[in-house]
């Protein structure tokens, strides 16, 4: 049963529940303490050690039911075998057991004058089926799985294929051939034989399904996340937006958590005994003046400016999404959006849920780009607030329709702020081509980077948060 528990934990891990080896040990201790008899109780107990958030608990419940349903069915069969040895105990009828002898009678009759059938009955596979020898059957399933490489199954579309291969590997063909022959003869042996084949198929299907659940399903979800984070943002389809949103939020939270340590407030701090005593020497050891250990307050401020004009429309949604999530998890973030004019959108982000906020921003500020004008607006709104603890992030392609770039404003921002970071969705090669002012703007940035997928965004933001500390 312990190995079953390990299997179960592997299943949970594949579903994105993080479980450490220490927790595995805890879970085993819990199982040993509670025993395996009370299923509800075991579930509650295991949930306490394995699931650490309500979301994980939901995943846990889902997996527990699916996994142990299957397991209990298996135990059922062994128990039934024991029950058979003691006929007094009533058995709970699964399809196979009752009157197995009676079912097999026509089979044996027919075998007397059918060489093919006789041969088949001697086949170990059919004997296992006849005896309902679960252990031997499981062993055969394991062997077949190894032979066809079931562990490599990754997509649910492969389930049918692998089921078929498994059946072949187990020697279902001989069974099938005999059944086809018997069908033509309308033999009474057909029905029991067909039943055995159905049982075999069911077993294989279950086995493949379980294997898929164990290895592939969680892998699939991770695979999707992986693909999503490396796809160019403008190519992502609308229907993945939800997932991306969750991903972005997860990322923003991860980043914020990693960098949140400076947000703490130190009011008075601890008594600095050394300094206090030293100050007391002058007054014969009487501590008139106390000194306190104090850490300097760090209040990094983030100003984010996002281009929402037509040329970056496809990216803008995701950049805004990210901005929204960032504002959600970090304090002191002010967000601005512009195309020809610029305005502050922090309040919109605070008030509305994400889709609504993004829609409103696009509607209010979308249009043709004018960086010069927008920088002017930005300076008017925020230049006074920019100081040595401010980081300014600009998200945009720097395509200014050949207008005045107003580099002087960006320069003054550059001089006042701690950091100016420019994230450009265009690839570096395109910078400076056509009406792109990127190379010129680059001269007034501490840091400029290409950013058109989530992985790049994450890297950039990680760097950025390290710089803002």
């Amino acid at each position: 049963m312990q190995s079953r528990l390990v299997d179960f934990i592997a299943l949970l891990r594949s579903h994105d529940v993080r479980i450490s080896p220490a927790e595995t040990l805890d879970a085993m201790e819990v199982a040993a303490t509670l025993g395996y008899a009370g299923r509800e109780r075991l579930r509650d107990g295991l949930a306490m050690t394995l699931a650490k958030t309500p979301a994980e608990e939901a995943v846990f419940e889902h997996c527990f039911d699916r996994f142990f349903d299957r397991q209990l069915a298996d135990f059922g069969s062994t128990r039934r075998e024991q029950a058979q040895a003691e006929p007094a105990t009533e058995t709970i009828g699964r399809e196979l057991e009752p009157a197995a002898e009676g079912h097999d009678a026509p089979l044996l009759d027919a075998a007397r004058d059918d060489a093919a059938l006789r041969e088949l009955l001697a086949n170990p596979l059919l004997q296992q089926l006849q005896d309902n020898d679960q252990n031997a059957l499981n062993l055969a399933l394991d062997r077949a799985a190894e032979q066809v490489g079931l562990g490599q199954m990754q997509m649910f579309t492969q389930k049918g294929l692998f089921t078929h291969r498994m059946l072949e590997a187990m020697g279902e063909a001989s069974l099938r051939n005999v059944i086809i022959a018997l069908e033509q003869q309308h033999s009474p042996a057909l029905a029991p034989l067909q039943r055995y084949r159905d049982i075999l198929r069911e077993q294989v299907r279950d086995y493949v399904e379980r294997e898929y659940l164990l290895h592939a399903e969680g892998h699939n979800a991770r695979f999707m996340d992986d693909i999503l984070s490396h796809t160019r943002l403008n190519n992502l389809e609308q229907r993945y937006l939800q997932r991306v949103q969750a991903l972005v939020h997860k990322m923003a939270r991860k980043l914020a958590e990693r960098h949140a340590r400076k947000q703490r407030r130190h009011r008075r701090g601890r008594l600095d005994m050394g300094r206090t005593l030293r100050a007391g020497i002058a007054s014969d050891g009487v501590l008139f003046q106390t000194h306190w250990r104090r850490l300097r307050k760090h209040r990094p401020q983030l100003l984010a400016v996002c281009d929402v004009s037509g040329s970056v429309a496809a990216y803008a949604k995701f950049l805004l999404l990210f901005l929204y999530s960032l504002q959600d998890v970090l304090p002191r973030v002010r967000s601005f959006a512009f195309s020809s004019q610029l305005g502050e959108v922090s309040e919109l982000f605070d008030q509305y849920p994400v889709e609504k906020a993004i829609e409103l921003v696009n509607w209010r500020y979308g249009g043709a780009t004018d960086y010069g004008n927008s920088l002017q607006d930005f300076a008017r709104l925020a230049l006074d607030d920019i100081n040595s603890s401010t980081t300014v992030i600009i998200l945009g392609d720097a395509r200014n329709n050949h207008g005045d770039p107003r580099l002087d404003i960006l320069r003054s921002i550059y001089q006042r702020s701690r950091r100016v970071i420019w994230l450009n969705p265009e690839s570096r090669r395109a910078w400076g081509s056509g009406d792109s002012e990127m190379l010129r703007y680059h001269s007034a940035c501490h840091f400029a980077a290409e950013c058109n997928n989530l992985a790049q965004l994450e890297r950039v933001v990680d760097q950025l948060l390290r710089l803002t500390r």
Partner: protein
Amino acid sequence: MHTRDFPQLASIEVIQQGFETCGYICSSKIATAVYLAFALRKPILVEGPPGVGKTELAKTTAELLQLPLIRLQCYEGLDEAKALYEWKYGKQLLYTQVLKEQLGDLLQGARGLAESVERLHRFGDIFYSEQFLEPRPLLKAMQQERGAILLIDEVDKSDYEFESLLLEILSDYQVSIPEIGTIKASVSPMVFLTSNNTRDISDALKRRCLHLYIPFPSVELEERIVRSRVPDIDNQLRHQLVAFVHSLRELDLKKTPAISETIDWARSLLLLHARDLDEAMVQNTLNVLLKFEEDIAAANAGLRKLLRSPGSA
């Protein structure tokens, strides 16, 4: 602490019954958590919306086991000196002043600085001994001879640094004091941590705890809770009010009424000699259940519908 020292903890059913006699009606999940916490000597991290009885669980356990309850309320800026221990600076200073004279006698006849220092060394760090140590809740819980229930309330309000401080205490039930050494609990206390989820608790801390999430109770459970807390209330009314609170929880409210609010409301209705939930009565007492003006307005708007639905059910 061993289960055998506490017959109250013999099995999950016994715990559940014990809690019930203390007036704490709980699901078997909660009892399982307490049972496991004892058997495995692990702290319980209790999460859930405010007012579902997280703190009450610790109090009831203390009552059931007849152990002292030591409570540490967390807040931002809580540090070692307030949670763990502090030196009694005043006493140290006073003693140095008082003993000044003694020092003269002690050093009398000593030749040279080296010998004086040598003599002083013989007395060790008297000013940094346990007599000068002011134990704060965490240390106090370690020092209880019979064991204790340690309640670390609202741990999510504390800083990350404090969480790290808890790690040593929660996994080994010991405290390291640089000047003295390690103080280990002779009987490990039973620890409850509560969290309202204002921020995420670090994985390291979560890993050391059993994780218990207490949701809002089911209708039957809540009725039993109200019956145990407000025994005088009429059956019919109790049924009605619990159903009403449950339908309130379905609404999109700023602060969903919890069990404590249900109990308060039941008490107020009892005081007002209410026989039946009628519209006027509910309107007048709604402020017991709902704590925001917007919520009250929202509930008032759908009051008739809310009142009808539990009645028909």
